[in-house]
C-alpha cells in the first residue's frame, strides 16, 4: 500500500505553515466562511428579496420539517444521486478494465469517453434536450429513417422516463472522470503482484477480485465522495430539461432551494435549506469514507 510521505518539517512549523496557507485561507474566508456565516444568519430571518426582514429564530427550520415538497425533493435527489453515482462508477470501472491495456484504438476510445466531462452541465443539458426532442431530434430521425409507425417515444413525459433519461445523460457526462481515476489506480498496481499471482495459478478474474479491487479502495473513496456529492447537488439538468415536471415530480433539493429563494423570494428559508443540505452532505460523506476505509481524505 502506498504510504503517506511525511517528512521532517523545516523551520518553525506554525509560522511556515501559516504562511503557505495564507492565499487559500484568504480566499476561503472571503468567499466561503463569510458568506456561509451570513447565510446562517439569514436562515434565522424572514428575508424577502424586496421588503422588510424580521428575525424569526428557528422558524425556517421548523417549516422545513413540514415542507412536503422538500421531503419529496430530497427522496428524489437521493434516488438520483445513488443510482447515477453507482452506475457511473461501475461503468467507469468496466471501461477502465477494458481499456487498461495498450492496444490500438484504446487511446482514442479513452479520449472520446472523457470528452463529455469537459463541457459544462448546462451546455450538456441543452444538447440532450435537443437530442430527446420528439419533433426535431435524432430519435425522431431514427423513427422516420426506420419507417416506424406512430410517433417516437417522449422520454421526458413521465417521471420514470425523465429519471432514466437524465441518469443516462449524467452518466454519459461523468463516467469518463471515474474511468480516468480508476484507470490510473489500476495502472499504479505493481506488476510484480499480478505476475506473482498469475504464476501461482490465479486467473484473470481472480486476480481482479483479490488484488486489483482491494487496492483500488482509495480511488473508489475519492470517486464516490466527489460523485455522490456532485450528484446530490444536481440542479441544471432538471431545471433546463423538465422544469421539475411532470407535475413537480422531478424537483431536486437544490432546485427547491432555487425555487424558494429566487422564484418565491423566501431568501431566509432558502438559506436554512442550504445549511441543511450542507449538513446532510457532511454526514453522508463521513459515513461513506468510514465504509470505504478512509481512503484519501484523512490527514
Amino acid at each position, binding site marked *: 500500500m502506498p504510504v503517506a510521505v511525511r517528512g521532517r518539517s523545516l523551520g518553525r512549523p506554525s509560522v511556515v505553515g501559516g504562511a503557505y496557507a495564507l492565499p487559500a485561507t484568504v480566499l476561503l474566508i472571503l468567499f466561503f466562511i463569510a458568506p456561509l456565516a451570513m447565510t446562517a444568519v439569514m436562515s434565522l430571518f424572514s428575508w424577502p428579496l424586496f421588503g422588510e426582514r424580521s428575525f424569526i429564530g428557528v422558524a425556517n427550520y421548523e417549516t422545513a420539517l413540514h415542507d412536503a415538497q422538500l421531503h419529496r425533493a430530497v427522496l428524489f435527489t437521493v434516488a438520483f444521486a445513488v443510482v447515477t453515482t453507482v452506475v457511473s462508477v461501475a461503468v467507469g470501472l468496466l471501461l477502465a478494465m477494458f481499456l487498461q491495456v495498450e492496444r490500438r484504438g484504446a487511446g482514442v476510445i479513452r479520449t472520446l469517453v472523457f470528452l463529455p466531462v469537459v463541457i459544462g452541465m448546462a451546455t450538456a443539458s441543452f444538447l440532450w434536450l435537443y437530442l430527446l426532442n420528439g419533433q*426535431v431530434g435524432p430519435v425522431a430521425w431514427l423513427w422516420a429513417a426506420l419507417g416506424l409507425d406512430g410517433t417516437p417515444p417522449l422520454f421526458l413525459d413521465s417521471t420514470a422516463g425523465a429519471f432514466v433519461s437524465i441518469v443516462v445523460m449524467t452518466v454519459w457526462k461523468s463516467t469518463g472522470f471515474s474511468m480516468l481515476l480508476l484507470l490510473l489506480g489500476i495502472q499504479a498496481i505493481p506488476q510484480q503482484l499480478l505476475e506473482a499471482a498469475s504464476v501461482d495459478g490465479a486467473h484473470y478474474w481472480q486476480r481482479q477480485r483479490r488484488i486489483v479491487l482491494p487496492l483500488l479502495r482509495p480511488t473508489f473513496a475519492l470517486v464516490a465522495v466527489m460523485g455522490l456529492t456532485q450528484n446530490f447537488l444536481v440542479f441544471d439538468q432538471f431545471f433546463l430539461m423538465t422544469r421539475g415536471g411532470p407535475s413537480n415530480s422531478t424537483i431536486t433539493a437544490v432546485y427547491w432551494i432555487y425555487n424558494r429563494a429566487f422564484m418565491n423570494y423566501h431568501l431566509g428559508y432558502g438559506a436554512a435549506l442550504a445549511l441543511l443540505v450542507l449538513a446532510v452532505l457532511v454526514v453522508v460523506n463521513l459515513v461513506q469514507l468510514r465504509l470505504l476505509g478512509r481512503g484519501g481524505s484523512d490527514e
Partner: protein
Amino acid sequence: MSDHVMTLPRSGPAPRRRRGPRAATATVLYWVTGVVVAAAFAFPLVWALLTALKPRGEAAAAPPTALPSRLSMTNFSRLWEYGVGLDVYLANSLVVAAVSVVATVIAAVLLGYALAHVRFRGAGLLFALVIAVMMVPFPAMIIAVFQVLQVIGLYNSLIGLALVYATYQLPFAVFLMRNAFRAVPTAMREAAVLDGAGTVRTLWSVMLPIVRPAIITVGLFAFIAAWNEFFAALIVLTDAGKFTLPLALMNAQTGNLGTVDWGAQQAGVIVASVPVMVLFLFLQRYYVRGIAEGAVKS
C-alpha cells in the same frame, strides 16, 4: 502512439501475441465493444456539430435530417454577431478562466505543500474546511458572496468573479496537490535538506518539477469550471461588455420564446465546448500522469 490520445504507462502482464481462433474472437469482441462505446459517447457531440453546420432553418426540420444538405457556417456567423459580439464574450471568458487558474494554482500548491510536509496547528481543520466547500449548494450562497464582493469593491468585475471561482475549485485542487506532494519520495526531500535547502528552496527547485503534472491538472480543471459557469457570472456581472460566454449564450437561447433556433443553439454548444476540448487534448499527456500522482497515492 500519437501525442493527442491518452497514453498510459504499461502495467499488468503484457498481452502475449497469440494466434488462433480464441485470439481472433477476443480481438473481434474488443473492436466491436470499442466501436460501440466510442460511438455511444461521441454521438451526441457529433450530432450537435452536424446540426450546427446545417444551413439556416434546416436544423428545425421535422422530421429531421441527419446530414446537412450542404455545409454552412450561417449558424456560427449569426452567433458571432450576437449582442456585443462573440469575440468580446470569448475574451472575457478567457480572462476570467486565466485569472481563476492562476489564483487556484497558487493557493492550492502552497496549501497542498504545507498540508503534506509542514506540520502546523489548524492543518486538519483547514483541510476539512476546504473539503466542505464543495458540499455547499452554491445558488444559496450567491447573494451573500455578492455582498462580500460589493464590500471589497470587486463587484461587476471579472477578477472578482475569477476569485470566487478559484475558491470553489479549492477542494479538488488542494486534495490533488496534497496527495501529489505526499507522493514525492522521501529520499529526494531529505537529500535537499541535507544540501541545506530551506522550505522554500525545497519546494521551488525540488518539488515543483515533480508535481508539475498535478499542477497542470489543477489548472485544467480550474479552467474548465470557470469557462462553463453561468450562475455566479449572472449575479456578479451587470455590464454586457463584461459578460462571459455562458451568460451570453443563455441570453441568446432564451431571447426567442417559442422560436428557439436549434441550429444557432447547437452552434452555441459547439462554441462553448470546442475550446475546452482543444485545451484538454493539448494537455492530455500531463493530465493523465498528474491524476496518477494525486489520486492514487493517498
